């Protein structure tokens, strides 16, 4: 199909009179090497719900942040009420009556509801609080929204759903006419979703415009008037929501991926012995009943949307987080992993999601970083055997093609790609049986990405079992031999060999397709 039929929104423009609240023309935004927005044209009608959808990293949150002044665009135009604006801070956007409710709510937990609502916009110009006036305006807002919140309870005693209401009231107290909501239902219990949608519709009836960023497609279609689909920073679809189905949105998201569906030839490794086997892994609120095997020499991909529980599962296997239930078996022996130390000793290695916060000692040398997990081996008594250390680190640094002026240089001076290679070197030094790579190529340039993929493949070819977790569907579709897709804390699909394609992974992750849905392993699917 041709996407151009729907692209550009010509038909929408034909509706008269065009009352665009916000319009963007050719917005551009780069983060380091990655292009987050590419020539984005979006038109948002006043008093409507406009949904922004797309897979992980498609640029939907970035677009929301640019409109709200939280991120500055590198190029292009932003028009509010037909006038070009250039917001440098959220405060400037607020002056144009635009505000963002981020995924992580930003309330002051120890202040009361009413204090939070008016924080920074307290009525009165004298510097003294005017409690009576504040209460009157609060009651007004409460009636207008129908929330019925208690003004004087502390925000940290409220449920997430009510905290969200406080955020909305806070936006209204600032006279916001356009509210951007980033994944508002992600942290919300299902029972509260409907209530939130009613609130949003009511806001629209009052003339407020809502930009709704989400990857829950059915919700989006039920709620939104218009929908814009982003893919790799491009607008690939702009249409009234009524003309779309979850299927058509996913098809748009997959976009050009359809054209290069020729999947890589994959050697099956089923014949190799099972290295790692996990059964019935659960942790309340994070993931449930996760079971899978990884063979020696196999790369297993773990795909899913942000928040689907991918990282949580692998962190729990590594002992970095608690596990409520389930067993982890390595080479036929069931392990009791009380912490990362046990995992490391058993032969696990993990490249954590954030190399800066969880992986590296940024101010220490490459050598110290690489040898840290292995000092017990490269030492004599209590002392580090520095000669052996120097040799071993130099050897493994060459192996991963780590480029640095000196191995004694602090890692913070390295490029993102070289930092990631340093992390790889750190674990390769110990010849791990199982490597868990969580977002191994996040924020690295194309060349380094290629190199890291080769390293992973080489490690697997050497006989290690590899679990690759990535939010990039393209990456999980390309590298692994077999892929599991997670959704809402559960494994919902498994693909292997020729069946692994980006579009299938995306469909499964969005829950847009029931094909290939498997209840693997013991099949004890509880409610």
């Amino acid at each position: 199909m041709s996407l151009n039929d729907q692209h550009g929104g010509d038909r929408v423009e034909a509706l008269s009179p065009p009352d665009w609240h916000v319009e963007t023309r050719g917005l551009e935004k780069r983060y380091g090497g990655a292009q987050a927005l590419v020539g984005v044209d979006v038109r948002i009608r006043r008093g409507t719900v406009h949904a922004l959808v797309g897979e992980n990293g498609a640029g939907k949150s970035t677009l929301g942040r640019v409109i709200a002044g939280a991120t500055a665009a590198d190029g292009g135009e932003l028009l509010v009420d037909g006038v070009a604006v250039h917001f440098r801070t959220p405060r400037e956007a607020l002056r144009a009556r635009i505000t963002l409710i981020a995924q992580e709510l930003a309330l002051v937990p120890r202040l009361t509801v009413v204090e939070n609502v008016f924080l920074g916009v307290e009525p009165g110009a004298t510097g003294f609080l005017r409690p009576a006036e504040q209460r009157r305006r609060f009651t007004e807002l409460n009636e207008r929204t129908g929330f019925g919140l208690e003004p004087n309870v502390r925000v940290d005693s409220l449920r997430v759903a009510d905290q969200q209401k406080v955020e909305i009231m806070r936006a209204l107290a600032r006279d916001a006419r356009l509210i951007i909501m980033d994944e508002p239902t992600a942290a919300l219990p299902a029972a509260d979703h409907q209530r939130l949608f009613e609130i949003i519709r009511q806001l629209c009836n009052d003339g407020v415009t809502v930009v709704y960023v989400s990857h829950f497609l059915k919700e989006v279609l039920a709620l939104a008037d218009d929908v814009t689909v982003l893919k790799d920073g491009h607008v690939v679809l702009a249409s009234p929501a009524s003309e779309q189905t979850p299927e058509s949105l996913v098809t748009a998201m997959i976009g050009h991926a359809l054209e290069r569906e020729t999947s890589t030839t994959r050697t099956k490794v089923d014949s190799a012995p099972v290295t790692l086997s996990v059964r019935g892994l659960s942790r309340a609120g994070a993931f449930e009943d996760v079971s899978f095997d990884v063979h020696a020499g196999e790369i297993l991909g773990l795909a899913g949307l942000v928040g689907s529980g991918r990282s949580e599962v692998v962190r729990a296997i590594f002992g970095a987080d608690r596990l409520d239930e389930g067993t982890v078996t390595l080479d036929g022996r069931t392990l009791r992993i009380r912490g990362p130390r046990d995992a490391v000793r058993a032969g696990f290695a993990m490249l954590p999601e954030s190399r800066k916060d969880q992986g590296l000692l940024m101010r220490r040398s490459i050598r110290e970083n690489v040898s840290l997990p292995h000092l017990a081996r490269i030492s004599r008594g209590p002392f580090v055997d520095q000669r052996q250390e120097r040799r071993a680190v130099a050897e493994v640094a060459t192996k991963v093609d780590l480029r640095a002026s000196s191995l004694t240089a602090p890692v913070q001076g390295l490029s993102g790609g070289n930092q990631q290679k340093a992390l790889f070197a750190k674990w390769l030094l110990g010849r791990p049986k199982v490597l868990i790579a969580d977002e191994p190529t996040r924020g690295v340039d194309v060349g380094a990405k290629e190199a890291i993929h080769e390293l992973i493949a080489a490690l697997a070819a050497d006989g290690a079992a590899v679990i690759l977790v990535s939010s990039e569907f393209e990456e999980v579709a390309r590298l692994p031999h077999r892929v599991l897709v997670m959704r809402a804390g559960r494994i919902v699909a498994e693909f292997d060999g020729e069946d692994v394609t980006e579009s299938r992974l995306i469909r499964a992750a969005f829950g847009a397709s029931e094909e290939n849905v498997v209840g693997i392993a013991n099949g004890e699917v509880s409610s």
Partner: protein
Amino acid sequence: MSVVGELEKPRTGVRARSEALKALRRVREYGIVASVVVLFIVLSLQSNVFLTQGNLLNILDQMAPAGIIACAQTLVIIGGGFDLSVGAMFAIAGVAATQLVPHIGVWPGLVVGALVGLGLGVVNAIFVAVLGINPFIATLASSFMFYGVASVMTGGYLVTVSDPGFSTLGNGSFIGVKYSIWLLLAVFLAATVTLRASKLGRYIFAIGGNAEAARLSGVRVNLVRTSTFALCGLAAGVAGVLAASRISQGQANVGNEYTLITIAAVVIGGTSILGGEGAVWRSVMGVFLLAMIGNGFNLLNLNPIYQQIVQGGIIIIAVAIDTLARRASN
């Protein structure tokens, strides 16, 4: 609302700024060396007495207890901790040694006194590493408790040791240099070797620099943190028995000044209060700088009130430089 906007920095001035930042980092790296050298030269020129062997050895002897504690305080601070109870541990160790000597003899008394410090350090470690109490609060509270225990032990009296052998450690010398200075040297070398050449040293840097990364690398973060507090207690104990031996007396209410002096010395030396970076020699230089300032005020007959103002000012400057340098490199 919840997010801070990115400031667009003007292109001009970027280079000048980065030059200034480099200079700042150098000041943090070598500021302590420069300060010591400058003050040393100034005092040598201003006073006839300063640059004599007797005076210099006297400075070293005077600073030995603070220097010994500062070496271990450095380990604690690099590991991301903080110990406000060193003064109290110093007092208990002195009291314990003076009370034990009549019963178990001079050298066993001194050793056990120092080991009492080690035990108290482990108590601190339990508060911090096991119970997870903020080190600042934990050691503040434990210092109250330790001083209380010391008072209970002495009943409020001075404990005097009559055995003349007890004063040997504090007053004797070897090839013209007092034992206290040898002891400082030994502790300095031990702490330096631990930090730079041992596994424990690597782990201390790791937990102070990024505790989560250390944990995910299989480092036993709590055990490492415990050992830094234990070593700090041991050092305070050694300093305590050394000081008690000097005057052949144990007292419950001494040592308070060492808490602040050692932390000040670590910071002035350029070790970051946020952990993960630093060196033992820097702290010893810091103690030396503070001791020289005191000595200079004496020799030049300056009003000692100004001494405190100067020392306080130096601490503020050192911390400000550390903060700015950190911000710059982030």
